[in-house]
């Protein structure tokens, strides 16, 4: 396999991992005011992701770094082109990350309320904007022959992109609800389980519509298979949620998100950022890539370190596998 293909796959894997993992912690953040009726319940929710959210976010940093290293043209064009959405995502991630750490540092209700808002908006904005961004990557954006973005902000906000944003929002909400049901005990668990089922119906409709539209824009055999797999996993997960098989429900939504992201990358390949303006502007895995020497070194580093990272991150989830409830929340 060509090294550029290997790195296209690796970037896809990193973004897939990022959305599967941070997807549920975005969901938990958005459901904070919905499922947490008092401070102790809200603390239960936050603590389901407490030990892991930071590690989850590193998937994004690694995906960004991998894109920069393996496909500098892709990274440069995309990040300068999607300027304002990325700015909003950054501001949201800043507010949210600090909020997790600072919320419990003072007892005042007003202090906590402010950070709760930061967690809610800081989770909601990226949940929508990542969908908008990836829909635009797939559909293509106006690029000049020298790969510069030639559109404005409004060029990124067309119906397909908005559907993409609504889909990731719904997927992450459902994924979050299912995760909360899996990780908590008591009332919160019950409410989360019931909410997951209700959210699931809307999510399934949005996801199927979005994936169908995606395949209508560009497609490949692999993309079709992955999309069908994503839909089946989502339906399976929701069925499991209905009968309160929480482990299977979470597996279902995780696989569905993973396969949905994979569908986008499979449909995109071998392009990485198609141009809707000048065909010469289209960025592909070949013309956006670094040199074979760089890719070779990066491949070695990835081959050695990725399994190690997966092992210790997986172990973290094992260490914190126990469910928590209001009784586990210390008074301070």
């Amino acid at each position: 396999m060509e090294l550029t293909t290997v790195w296209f796959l690796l970037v896809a894997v990193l973004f897939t991992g990022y959305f599967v993992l941070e997807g549920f912690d975005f969901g938990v953040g958005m459901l904070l005011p919905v499922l947490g009726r008092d401070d102790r319940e809200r603390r239960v929710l936050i603590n389901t992701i407490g030990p892991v959210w930071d590690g989850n976010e590193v998937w994004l940093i690694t995906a960004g770094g991998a894109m920069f290293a393996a496909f500098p043209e892709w990274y440069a064009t995309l990040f300068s082109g999607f300027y304002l959405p990325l700015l909003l995502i950054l501001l949201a991630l800043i507010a949210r990350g600090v909020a997790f750490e600072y919320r419990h540092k003072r007892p005042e209700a007003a202090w906590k309320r402010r950070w709760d808002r930061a967690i809610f908006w800081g989770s909601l904005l990226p949940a929508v904007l990542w969908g908008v961004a990836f829909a635009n990557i797939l559909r293509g954006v106006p690029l000049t022959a020298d790969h510069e973005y030639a559109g404005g902000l409004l060029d990124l906000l067309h119906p397909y992109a908005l559907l993409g944003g609504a889909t990731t929002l719904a997927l992450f909400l459902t994924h979050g609800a299912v995760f909360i049901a899996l990780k908590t005990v008591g009332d919160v668990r019950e409410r989360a389980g019931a909410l997951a089922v209700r959210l699931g119906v809307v999510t399934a409709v949005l996801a199927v519509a979005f994936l169908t539209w995606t395949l209508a824009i560009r497609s490949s055999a692999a993309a079709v298979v992955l999309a069908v797999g994503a839909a089946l996993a989502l339906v399976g997960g929701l069925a499991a949620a209905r009968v309160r098989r929480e482990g299977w429900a979470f597996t279902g939504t995780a696989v569905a998100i993973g396969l949905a992201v994979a569908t986008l990358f499979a449909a995109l390949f071998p392009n990485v950022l198609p141009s809707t303006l000048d065909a010469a502007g289209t960025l592909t895995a070949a013309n956006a890539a670094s040199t074979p020497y760089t890719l070779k070194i990066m491949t070695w580093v990835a081959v050695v370190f990725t399994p190690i990272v997966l092992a210790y991150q997986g172990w973290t989830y094992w260490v914190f596998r126990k469910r928590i409830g209001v009784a586990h929340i210390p008074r301070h």
Partner: protein
Amino acid sequence: MAGGFQVDALDVARWQFGVTTVYHFLFVPLTIGLSVLVAILQTLWHRTGDEKYLKLTKFYGKLFLINFAMGVVTGIVQEFQFGMNWSDYSRFVGDVFGSFLAIEALVAFFLESTFIGLWIFGWDRLPKRLHLASIWAAAIGTNLSAYFILAANSFMQNPVGYRVNPESGRAELTDFVAVLTNKVALITFPHTIAGAFLVAGSLLVAVALWHLIRNRDSADTPAYRFAAKFGSWVTLVAAAAVVITGDIQGKIMTQVQPMKMAAAEGLYATESPASFSVLTVGSLDGTRELFALKIPYLLSYLGTGDPNGTVQGINDLQAQYTAQYGAGSYTPIIPVTYWSFRFMIAFGLAAAAIALLVLWTHRKGRTPGSRWLLRAGLVMPLLPLVANSFGWIFTEMGRQPWIVFGEMLTRDGVSRSVSLAEVLTSFTAFTLIYATLAVIEFKLLVRYARAGVPDLTPAPEPDDTDDAERPLAFAY
């Protein structure tokens, strides 16, 4: 700046990079230094079983985490910013520079973030040894991360291990090991790490001193005494390391970036031997000196190791670069480089001086009580923090007008597709959110520093609590 003031996207992008980078590096030194110091405190507890070390571990661990969160979230901005504001730079160096950022994330940052989570929440979930190993893993990840980032930055100061492809016009990696072992990276790393320990050691001292002077005979006095002395030693050793590595760095800089050395000194004409300027007042346009206080031979020694060595002056280098790279100014803004260089040294040394004073007041079992020492102690962590900032301002401004020395001008690296309005929006947004968070973070640090070391007597358990419902040792 005759004839009116005009701002373009390039200026704002430069200001944004300056503000976000200096801001990010207010948190990084504490993360680097304190992660190791907390790990050492926890190790001491394991070895001796003395509760004073456990109290200090938990106490400084809390301050570490308040600071850590800010370092993480401002770090994401740094990675994204290259693509957003400096996309032509990113295209040019992605092959070399990008790979170092990617390796940093995969090899170091995952380690740091995952194990910090295990450490924060793992007090009652992990066996004691594994919990101790977690803070060490996080500390190692943090320091490793610094190496990759500094290697990437060193490529911008002294590009090695690459060639510029004449067809694509991009820098291409030819020798990974050469970039990894760039002599600028090898010396900048210990200099930066030592600077970080200067900050962390000073924080230990400041907080401990505050408690010691306020309450001389509390049950926790031994803990604070230890922290003040330990912090002072860390600060002194770090200061020595900063001076030694800084000296070597100066000699390397004279070789690879002679203009930066000349700019640090405001040395206009080549001199041999060259004297070190303690204070020079130049004309406003920065081309002539009006008044100068100098130490003879010192600059020659600092730059070359030989008191009679030749140090090239700005005017000669400017002429040489014009011949080499074409017409244009290759001179950094001299007042900025000159003063940032001096402030870096002065603020760093001031912290070391206070550390000496603190050790003196602790001699032979004494406990300090002076209000003056308290005041000095409270500003102490700010001094090396400011020194760190000036160090970065110096090294980055001293490289100008280059973004990659000798290869790409900063003005050619900026994103062409990003408008002035966009970059102004982002600059304003970051400045506002950063300023707000700085106030919140500082107040929290003060609040938790004042609260003092924790009381370790466990809260009485309600009788009906069985093991499965015991509250977590730590929760957000």
